[in-house]
């Protein structure tokens, strides 16, 4: 009998580990399939391509994870991305005459500032005036997009500084070794910082606490309003950063960039196992979710599957991931 008990414990433990690794396993299975079905999937160059393609959605998803962990939502990410992108573009463009051309680094800082301010407005209104996150960010989706059109007069901002374009098109080459594209480096760096903030700093524990139960968080002395303000400001910052990368990658500040990007960001977070009600979910899951979506998009392109199926596929994965969560929590009960 004791043998049985211990083997049952063993198998439970094994199942628990399998469960923890479910997204990673799904990702590996898809990659194995794609490397058999296509000739060039499993090449360094392609994997780097996929990482570069996901870096924009990756940055948005990191911010989205913070927000969803507090029980909120940010629908305005695509619009803030566009605004941050065109503000930066305007300051490194020789064609945009309303503002001077300045040092690319300063231009990027201005773009990031613009995005952070929009995010901070979201956070301020949500935390101080008790407007629900859905409504406030829905409003911001429209406001920021409109501001982007006003700022650009509806035209793409082109003729951008060559040094600036490096951040989207160049490679990180320490000691002359071509390592990774800049967007990938920036994405991974942002992820690492976010991980430290979330798991090694008090702020991170507060984010989980606020999402878990805002009332008890408040009673235990956490400044809930400040945490909520901060996560939206962080999201605004990361959106603008994504906008800078996209602008440099496409060589133009496009006013219509980022339309409906919020869907992919929310999808990545949900696939990653973060609960929409807040308080629960791993940041690493978001990373895997982001890569999973990118691998599927890129893989279906390479298999010449119609983009219609791509959309159905993504939808099924989102719903499937949430259904899995439901069965799991049902089992726990």
């Amino acid at each position, binding site marked *: 009998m004791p043998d049985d008990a211990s083997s049952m414990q063993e198998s439970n433990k094994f199942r628990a580990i399998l469960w923890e690794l479910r997204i990673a396993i799904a990702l590996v299975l898809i990659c194995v399939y794609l490397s058999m079905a296509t000739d*060039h999937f499993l090449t360094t160059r392609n994997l780097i391509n996929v990482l570069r393609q996901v870096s924009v959605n990756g940055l948005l998803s990191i911010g989205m994870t913070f927000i969803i962990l507090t029980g909120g939502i940010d629908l305005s990410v695509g619009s803030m991305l566009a605004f941050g992108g065109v503000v930066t573009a305007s300051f490194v463009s020789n064609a945009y005459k309303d503002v001077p051309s300045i040092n690319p680094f300063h231009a990027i800082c201005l773009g990031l500032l613009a995005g952070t301010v929009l995010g901070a407005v979201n956070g301020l209104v949500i935390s101080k005036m008790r407007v629900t996150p859905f409504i406030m960010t829905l409003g911001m989706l429209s406001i920021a997009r409109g501001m982007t059109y006003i700022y650009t007069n509806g035209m793409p901002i082109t003729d951008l500084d060559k040094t600036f374009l490096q951040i989207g098109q160049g490679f990180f080459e320490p000691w002359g070794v071509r390592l990774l594209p800049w967007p990938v480096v920036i994405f991974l760096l942002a992820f690492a910082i976010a991980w430290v903030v979330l798991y090694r700093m008090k702020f991170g524990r507060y984010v989980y606490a606020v999402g878990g139960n805002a009332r008890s968080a408040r009673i235990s002395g956490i400044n809930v309003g400040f945490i909520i303000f901060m996560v939206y400001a962080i999201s605004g910052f990361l959106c603008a950063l994504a906008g800078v990368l996209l602008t440099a990658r496409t060589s133009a500040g*496009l006013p219509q960039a980022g339309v409906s990007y919020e869907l992919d960001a929310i999808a990545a977070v949900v696939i990653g196992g973060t609960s929409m009600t807040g308080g629960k979910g791993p940041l690493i899951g978001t990373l895997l979710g982001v890569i999973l979506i990118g691998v599927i998009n890129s893989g279906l392109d390479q298999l010449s599957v119609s983009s219609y199926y791509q959309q159905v596929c993504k939808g099924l994965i989102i719903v499937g991931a949430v259904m899995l969560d439901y069965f799991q929590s049902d089992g726990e009960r």
Partner: protein
Amino acid sequence: MRKTALFVAALVFVVSIGFAQAGQKYRIGGATYGLAGEYMKLWATALERHPAVQQGLVDLTIFDGRYDASVQQSQFETMSSQGYDAILFVPIDIEAGAAAVATAHAADVIVVGSNTRVNSDLLTAYIGSNDVVSGYMEAKAVIEKMGGKGNVVIIEGPIGQSAQIERLEGNLKAIAEYPEVNVLERRTANWSRAEALALMENWLTAHPGTIHGVIGQNDEMALGAVQAIKAAGLDVKDFAIAGIDGVSDAITAVKNGEMDLSILQDAVSQAQGAIDIALGYLIDGYEPMSDCWKDYPEMKWNGGKDKTYDVPWTPITKQNADEQWEKRQDLTAR
């Protein structure tokens, strides 16, 4: 009380008669499918620069259709009830605008289609460019640069939109003339540069070294392909690349030798020609004021009563890119 009402009524009557007799000012609405893209923006700017608008003969209002057929429908209802004399209509889609045209027709408002055709007999006239022709021209240019043989990829517009259908027809017509040309891939990137960039990167991975030509059904997507080729560390000059529309960035790319061809769709002529046609119906013996009739002698005015006016396409190549760039600067200056 009654006296006041009577007085007001009389005043309204007198004023409206006064307006009718003054008679020289025509209210015209420019109904765009949406003002978020460069092309419609140029179209709207060209309307504002038409001599008749500048001289005050026409009172012009631009409407932003926000890429939604139902928004355009309600804008048509507004214009019809507010007594507009004519509407210049660029529908979001060939099928979606018929109901809007019917609304205006019922209110005796002249509707001149521009840029995109509407499937309706009630349209007064139409001025635009034949998309099949541009699709044929760009595919032909790409294939000729490839030496008449090799592999091409086609990046398409949103499937089912009239421009996508007709440009594809032209693409395939040109490709059919060359038995040694093979279409490797054909997919939509929804007119978007960012989408085309990712798509082309994935194609370059799937078909390393075997893609020779890129047919972009618009310039934005062709530019996305250019970025993907550069990102893959390849030389853009080894590829034959063409797009359609003649957006500013594409003119620059042609100047720099990154794109081989962009085909200018003349927003100015499509817009200004449409005002002339509308005024031709409103004023007896009207002579067109826009330069477009002089720019394209092959497009005949014919008293302004033709059903269809075909604005020719202008290929932008290295030879005329500088000249086209100057023209564009003038139009986009704020």
